[in-house]
């Protein structure tokens, strides 16, 4: 899977699962946690999605609000754990 394909996959999931308002535009750079679109409790379900989809294990210490704050940063994090 290319980097852009990974980003598209994560972006689609975020929009489908966490964004109720159709008028909101989410891009690769949109802040997700600091904007309040994804709260800290919901971040856990996003983590599980990433681990399932990419067959990786992200250590709890790395699953920080900063690391999950945009599709770009999420994919960068995922990339570190892909074999």
């Amino acid at each position, binding site marked *: 899977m290319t980097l852009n394909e990974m980003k598209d996959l994560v972006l689609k999931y975020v929009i489908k699962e966490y964004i109720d308002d159709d008028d909101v535009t989410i891009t690769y750079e949109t802040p997700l*946690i600091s904007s309040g679109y*994804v709260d*800290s*409790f919901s971040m856990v379900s996003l983590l599980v999605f990433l681990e399932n989809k990419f067959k990786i294990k992200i250590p709890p210490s790395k699953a920080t*609000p900063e690391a999950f704050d945009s599709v770009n940063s999420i994919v960068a994090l995922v990339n570190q754990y892909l074999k």
Partner: protein
Amino acid sequence: MTNHPTYDELSRDFSWSIAEQELEYKPGGRINIGWYCSDRICRKGDPDKIALYYEGFGGVEKKFTFNDIRLAGNTIGTYLRGLGINDGDRVCLFMDRIPELYLSFLGILKIGAIVQPLFSAFGDESLFVRLENAGTRAVITQKKHLSKVRKIRAQLPDLEYVIIVDGVKASDLEKGEVLFNLEKSDPVENFDIHPTTAESPSVLHYTSGTTGQPKGVKHVHYSLISQYLTTKWVLDLRDGDIYWCTADPGWVTGTSYGIIGPWSLGITQCVLDSGFSAQTWYKFIEKHRVTVWYSAPTAIRSLMKAGDEIVKSFDLSSLRHLASVGEPLNSEAVIWSDRVFGKPFLDTFWQTETGSIMITNFPGMKVKPGSMGRTFPGITGTVLDPVTYDPITENGRAGLIAFKPGWPSMMRTYWNNPEKYKDKFVNGWYLSGDRASIDNEGYYWFIGRDDDVINTGGHLVSPFEVESALLEHPAVGESAVTSKPDEINMEVVKAFITLKPGFTQSPDLELDIMNFIRKKLSPLAMPQAVEFMDKLPKTRSGKIMRRVLHAREWGEEIGDISTLEND
């Protein structure tokens, strides 16, 4: 220096009439929280003082003077009256922390209606049970939350109006939906405030219990007396302070101490409506020169996790007083805040039902890190023997935290549920549902809940509610819900389930179940772990033994399992 004499001096001469006199309230007379929080401050000569600095995501900033919030309350009240909303009607606030939330709170109270604030992250099921129970007549909400309201609207015959404060085109409105744009409305200068008195209902907050549906905690306008005095003495607010309460008004802290307390004292407060990040929070304190900060242990532990270095990047020297509420504040967090901010977070203890702070570390009082502090002056507290319900006189022995009823902000009942209300009292004591011990100096030390309710990040989650919702998932046969330890949130929800025939456990099914609960109830109620089991531990009569699962998660003794069903 604090705002008042010492704890011992205040306790000796205490009477709630201190607050009545300062507020110029005469027993038997009119008392309206909406008026006290806005009109009275203007009348006292501070109409141009800033009441609210608001900062939303993306740099949106607004500010409102006390005269602005007075006019906004009048305008919203006039609009609601125009719709036919009357005193005693329940009006739900289902919004993010935008200015309209705070201003509508005042407007609803000014017409004598009852404010029903609900956390905007609630899913449709959580919203439905609370609106149905309250017989809510109107919901004030935002476009982004409208889909949840629309989903349940047809099942709520009492709900006449859905009032949307932003973003919807008139052509997109459905039956019973109306648009209200505060900024485009003509400000109402003169307004007849409903003549509410001490026992007139004011706020209806919902809280979760071990069994049954969430309970509506009814408060009255006289609660102001407690909220005013505890804000002044415990939060130590003074003229010139810039105050930040990080709680959402969907929960009681966000109304008692995020609206009523500070504004009845004429204090400027700040609201930050965006997600959490250490950087954003510190920047907010620096920018607004926050002096008094009331937050929660979960947030404090998250800040601790972000490290000490980041603190040094900001000028936080404006901070004078820090306090915490929601769950026990661990001693490490107290010591950490003392080190990095130069002052400790002082723990406070109270509940939705108590309406105001009951046990607290008083400014100027000796701080014992890890302790909840001592009872607020005028509050008679104790710990009761769990069997006899007699007060425990022995220092350090664990018991049930209980209070003598009679303080001004005590709940008046559970909405439509007088039996549950009655159950909260034994031998003339109000039972808090929490356990603690008291040391030889009268300091309380928290031990835990006395029931199965989960306190996650300072919010109560009913295991019953989550278990019931889980059963609506097509794959779930049986469910049991308990808590598991969590470094940041103290505890989080964990679900144990058995599957219906034809379903197989998988990571994707686990995620699907998590998201199902997140959307149906709320992110707080979402299990952060799902364990698939062949069978759940049950008594021989078939009752699921939640405590067996709880003990396993927490590494505790399981206790008596003589009634456990054998294989």
